[in-house]
């Protein structure tokens, strides 16, 4: 009888350990910790901060796939060069804008409430950023071997991937589907960010 009890206890305990440390949650948790301790609260110059953020951000987010999604129907029509130029401009610009967003961080904690299966090898990690009015953030991950990449961040129901896609479609629609014009616009905007930062 004792043995059975012990066995049941062991099983229950292993379940609770499993629930507490899901690899997908750990991935987001570690990433957030890494960015907070090594970038946001690190004692370095703003330039070094941006570089550190760029390294962490481009490593964690699958910007190539997101970029492809963002161009949508225009991706297939674009030339190889245009695709490359777009991905570069998109990566550079999103890195800067997200670095700026993360800079608004002021010590809020992030609580994870669970993981849902999205598709085949994709997961939604549900989280809440504690603030006066808590903010609901869902991280969409794609598993790659035993590692993960972020493919979308959904804040209060607003998907970043869908937002970029809708916005860039509007830009492309206005200039007859010319990807180069969009790339130019992104470069211009990205440079404006540098000027503003330098002030």
């Amino acid at each position, binding site marked *: 009888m004792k043995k059975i009890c012990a066995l049941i206890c062991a099983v229950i305990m292993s379940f609770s350990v499993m629930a507490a440390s899901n690899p997908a949650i750990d991935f987001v948790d570690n990433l957030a910790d890494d960015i907070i301790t090594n970038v946001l609260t690190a004692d370095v110059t703003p330039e070094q901060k941006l570089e550190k953020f760029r390294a962490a951000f481009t490593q964690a987010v699958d910007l190539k796939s997101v970029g492809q999604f963002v161009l949508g129907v225009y991706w297939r029509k674009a030339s190889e060069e245009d695709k490359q130029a777009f991905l570069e401009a998109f990566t550079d610009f999103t890195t800067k804008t997200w670095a700026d967003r993360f800079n*608004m961080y002021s010590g809020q904690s992030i609580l994870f409430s669970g993981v849902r299966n999205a598709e085949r090898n994709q997961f939604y990690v549900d989280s809440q950023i504690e603030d006066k009015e808590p903010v609901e953030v869902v991280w969409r991950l794609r598993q*790659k071997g035993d590692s993960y990449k972020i493919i979308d961040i959904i804040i209060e129901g607003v998907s970043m991937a*869908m937002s970029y896609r809708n*916005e860039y479609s509007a830009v492309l629609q206005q200039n007859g589907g010319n990807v180069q014009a969009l790339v130019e616009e992104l470069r211009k905007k990205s440079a404006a960010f540098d000027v503003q930062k330098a002030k």
Partner: protein
Amino acid sequence: MAKIKYVLAFLISCSVLVGCASVPTDPVEAELYHQVNDPLEPMNRTIFAFNQATEKAILRPVAKGYRFVVPQLVRNSIGNFFSNLKQPVYFLNALLQGEVKDAGIILGRFTLNTIWGVGGLFDIATEAHIASPTHDFGQTLAKWFWSGDGGPYLMLPILGPSDVRDAVGRGVDALAEPATWVVEPEIWYAGWALDKLETYTRSMDLLENLEKSSADYYATLRTMYRQNSAKRNGTAKETASAGQAKPAYEADFSDIDWEDDE
């Protein structure tokens, strides 16, 4: 409500002046056109330009001064006060939506903050970790009569992104607000302006970042508004195959050539 009449007259005169967007002939562009559901885009963009000019010339400088001068504690109380005033309308809408539990929470929160929080100046309920559900008339409409995307997108003067359902909802909520009947109009407008100023000041930095990070700020706000509205109104798109409600944010990545998938 003379205010609403003026807004309507303004909208109508704008749409006459600017006209409607024409449906594109290209199938891809036509699909996008129906997806964003913004037939009044030319008028909306004109109003948006006006809003942005007002924001830069008046609202932002005033908000910066306000943020500099008014201490954070006072600002919190201002925010709490106006948030508390909205609770009766949330309460009514929660009941109309059949959300009895939320209605109870809202009533409890309102009572607590009004009595022990000195007329709503202190948000004791939040400090006690009581949730703060919000229910507006737009949601009530969405729940019973008007599911889907809320009709054509609207850019309201000063008030910003909206759609037809939400604009109607806002009007009804404003009429239902007890302060509308009790207080002198001048005081009501002053209170309204202070409430909007406080709300704007809180999100000012984020909005600035959003504008800087957009290639088309108008389109960015439009899609964000639509997605957030789908979440708030519980009208996330239905999947064609299963007929099962999916979260609105479920971006369809099925077209992507994943690098590791060859």
